[in-house]
């Protein structure tokens, strides 16, 4: 499996749900070079999830545009795949069928599908569960199936909308590490939306902070850490504290209440 990344350019992006509703976010500009893992952090309601949906082509912006390698994103495409908070697997299919479903929509031979599905299942380490019904899997395993279902499409960009927030801490930590290492190995871009500072520190090369209402990007932070990253490492913890401080002062500067630990962890 060889995947390349894509250069993301977000230009003057403004969104409101209906002409009368308030602006979700206003004139957002953001760039991410090919192969980067970018985290967008912010509190609930700052529009970060909406931004991700526009990146995926699921929602349309009111103004502005999203360019991937210079081409405008107008609709969903298997080249930029989104993963959600819940795995949303198809319960009438086995793990293998779920992983292969995207390929079966396209013009792939049975043999090609089989090869790529096997590879993707190995990548997320679910070899022993390939023929199981997805309803017999744990939450973490189901999210791994969803990851394999996205990876099998060989996307240039993987969009993650708080994808591990429903999992227990241990499973979440292992998936965060795995997704980052797979992305780095294969070279595709990640944009992850999260309110979990730890997640940003473990997974991203760079974090941008979104705050205010309407939301805007108020700060950005290089996560300059070697791999593999371990949250118990003092260097990681120091960086996490710095990012938290930056986040709190950014929110304060926007006139918001400083983030509580419970919400932004």
């Amino acid at each position, binding site marked *: 499996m060889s995947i390349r990344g894509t250069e993301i350019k977000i230009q003057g992006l403004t969104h409101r749900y209906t002409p009368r509703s308030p602006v979700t976010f206003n004139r957002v500009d953001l760039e991410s070079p090919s192969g980067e893992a970018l985290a967008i952090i912010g509190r609930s309601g700052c529009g970060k999830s909406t931004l991700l949906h526009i990146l*995926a082509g699921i929602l349309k912006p009111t103004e502005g545009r999203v360019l991937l390698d210079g081409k405008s994103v107008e609709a969903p495409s298997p080249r930029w795949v989104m993963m959600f908070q819940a795995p949303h697997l*198809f*319960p009438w299919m086995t793990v293998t069928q779920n992983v292969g479903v995207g390929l079966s929509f396209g013009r792939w031979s049975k043999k090609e599908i089989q090869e790529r599905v096997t590879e993707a299942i190995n990548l997320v380490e679910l070899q022993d569960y390939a023929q199981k019904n997805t309803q017999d899997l744990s939450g973490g395993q189901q999210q791994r199936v969803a990851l394999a279902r996205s990876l099998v499409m060989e996307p240039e960009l993987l969009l993650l909308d708080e994808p591990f927030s429903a999992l227990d801490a241990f499973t979440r930590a292992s998936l965060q590490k795995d997704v980052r290492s797979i992305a780095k190995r294969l070279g595709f871009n990640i944009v992850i939306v999260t309110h979990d500072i730890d997640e940003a520190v473990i997974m991203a090369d760079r974090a941008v902070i979104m705050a205010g209402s309407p939301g805007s990007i108020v700060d950005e932070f290089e996560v300059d850490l070697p791999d593999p990253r371990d949250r118990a490492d003092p260097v990681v913890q120091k960086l996490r504290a710095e990012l938290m401080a930056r986040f709190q002062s950014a929110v304060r500067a926007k006139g918001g209440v400083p983030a509580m630990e419970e919400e932004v962890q």
Partner: protein
Amino acid sequence: MSSPVASSGGAVAAGWYKHPAVQQLGWAIAGISILVALWTLFGYYIAGNPKTQSFASFGFIPTMHAFPELWELGKLQSAVMVSTYRLGAGLAIAVAIGVPVGILMGRVKRFRELSNSPFQLLRMVSPLSWMPIAVYVYATWDGAIIFLIAMAAVWPVMFQTAAGLSKVDPAWFKVARNLGASSTQMLTRIIIPAITFDVLSGIRLALGVAWIVLVPAEYLGVTSGLGYAIQDARGTLSYHWLTAMVMTIGAIGYCLDSILVLLIKRFSWHRGG
């Protein structure tokens, strides 16, 4: 009956009677036996009473004698063939109309809101009350009866399909679209497998209604089918033929329903019942 061994993984063939399928069959046989016993007793009672003696052939034993007689005359086969053809054609039309319209109801909110009241109103019309209209519209009795069955069967199929679709996780569509599904693929690969269980449950309900409508519809005018055979038997005072036909109706209905129950089990992806 050879599978109980596998379930406990050892040589426990002696416990075969504990297998759920065997137990279920046992209860079914016991239940039917009680019914037959009561019927036999009832037969003896009316045969023994001078007032009701002339109806003695309603009993279980005369009815059992009627089956070979009707078979030899070819009456049983032809009645079953004709009636099941009408039932099948009516159900097929009901599915062909009910499933697409049900999908539309489940997917398009405006259509659901617009169609709900007229459909609920039409649903409450007794299917047999369309009979005079059906007779005017259709040149043949067959056509009229098939129309009545379709009118009776279409509603459960339609409403169950719509209800099934409303339970579908909307994120499945978002995921499928993101993975490149075309509209046709969305229908064949996502929507249909997701709702097959509900559609089959609808067909099961429809079958019940259709089978109930079929017999009275065949009382009116036609000269073939199970309903006609019952009328005919009554006319010729062949009561044991009459009960044999009634039994046949029950048995066929029971078999068809059992087939659908098996299909529903096969296509259900719901866990825990």
